[in-house]
């Protein structure tokens, strides 16, 4: 029998839909179904918040009265939903690859910095979900050649716009924050602006790629 998602009532008005045990090999396909499920639930207008995470979705209901209905409906919806129904936006993140750790990352993998830039910028990344801080996207798609253990000592301040690598993940810091990832570049693209009508550029399920900018400050003697 094929495994089924676990569904828990967390409170009288919130549910956890957990599909993280379904398929260890194809996390991305499961995540696409999570985005499609999220979209469907959003269209009903019965939730205050819908929070996709790693192969799971936490649902916060407007009314306690709808809890049992959704406990029963979610497994059926999951069977019906196709991963292909969700289409996110694609973003181009212009990046200057001059981060203070780019040489470290290159040396660690016996690559040149140009090779690091090529590998990092040729991939298409999926935004699995957001968390940690406003606008911080957990990205899927970092080439294994660039997987790099986190820094032994986290930096007290990683500047806003830093493009970084931590273990099997790459990401962009939307604001100044402490962080233990290796900084390989910087983008001027604003990921989060609380005063904007659309505060967050990137949404769960979007895709993005990094577009290398030539570092105009560099001189070649």
């Amino acid at each position, binding site marked *: 029998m094929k495994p089924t998602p*676990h569904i*828990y*009532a*967390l*409170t*009288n008005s*919130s549910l*956890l839909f*957990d599909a*993280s045990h379904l398929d260890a090999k194809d996390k991305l396909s499961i995540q696409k179904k999570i985005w499609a499920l*999220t979209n469907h639930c959003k269209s009903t207008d019965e939730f*205050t*918040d*819908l*929070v*996709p*995470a*790693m*192969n*799971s*979705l*936490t649902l*916060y209901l407007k009314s*306690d009265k709808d809890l049992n209905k959704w406990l029963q409906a979610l497994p059926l919806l999951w069977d019906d939903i196709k991963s292909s129904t969700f289409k996110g936006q694609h973003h181009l993140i212009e990046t200057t690859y001059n981060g203070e750790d780019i040489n470290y990352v290159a040396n660690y993998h016996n690559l040149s910095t140009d090779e690091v830039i090529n590998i990092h910028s040729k991939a298409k990344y999926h935004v699995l*979900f*957001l*968390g*940690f*801080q*406003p*606008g*911080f996207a*957990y990205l899927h798609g970092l080439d294994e050649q660039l997987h790099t253990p986190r820094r032994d000592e986290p930096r007290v301040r990683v500047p806003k716009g830093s493009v970084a690598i931590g273990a099997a993940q790459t990401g962009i810091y939307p*604001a100044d924050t402490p962080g233990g990832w290796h900084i390989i570049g910087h983008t001027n693209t604003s990921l*989060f602006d*609380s*005063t904007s009508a659309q*505060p*967050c550029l990137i*949404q*769960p399920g979007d895709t993005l790629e990094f577009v290398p900018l030539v570092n105009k400050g560099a001189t070649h003697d």
Partner: protein
Amino acid sequence: MIKVLKSGVLLTIQDFGRVGYRHLGVSKAGSLDPFAQIIANKLLNNNDNDAVLEITVGLCELEFTCDTVIALHGADLQATLDGQAIYPGWTYAVKNKQVLSFGTGRAGLRAYLAVKGGIQNTEVMGSKSTDLNARFGGIEGRALTTGDEIPITPYYGEFIKVGAIAPAQRKLIRLYPSPHANLLGKPLLDTFAATAYKVSTNSNRMGVRLEHNKNSLVHSHSLPSLGVSPGSIQLPPNGDPIVLLNDGQTTGGYPLLGTVIEADLHQFAQFRPLDTVEFKYVTFEEAAQAKQKLDGHLHQLSLALKNNL
């Protein structure tokens, strides 16, 4: 306007906080003791969600630059108005140039100050609350400091003195069951519920950390990130539970011991470091009844005030 003469330990502007942005990683923020906010606002015939000042520990001094009416609720932090003692649960008329000072209290941690008409700072993403981590909302996204001017609307109208008692404080916190019961196992969950905890000094608006001297809650499980919210109780591998509060993150990878019921979550606003906390799992029906009881208390207050204001 209210001028901050002394900001004390932590002084912030809060309302009910932000809803609808958790999928972008945006925390709720908002008053940790929303019932204190609601009661203080009701006493002034404000909207329940009007912004208030959250005063942590006390030791702050505020000067009014216009007339208004205020209501205090939450912890008794030994407030005085021009040297005269004033008490939580009551309304007071305030005149231009008067100074409101807070000492500190023996019980409870946070006091709430509502002003007639509410605090008038700009809304950001649907709320006036201060998000201290992401640094937006309130005034410049930060705790208030000496010299800040808090915008309020002057009020010269009539004033009827009214008061209201607060819902009872309790140390036995009721919980919804753990979604990770299979992973953590019954012995661990039984031990968790049978243990008395001390509130760690390392607690803040993000979460209350709980200490104890057993090592039977230590574990080595790591989970794919899942959505968490105020009231989620995380169990990191070191075995010291964390009760997430309003400034907590939106996702996390620690197993959950359960969720604090809606009616009891506000108690964490008032626990002080080294206070004792205990937990008890309850059914979904019991959680719903406890919430109804609290809503009933507030409804009765609204009715009583309607006849008086």
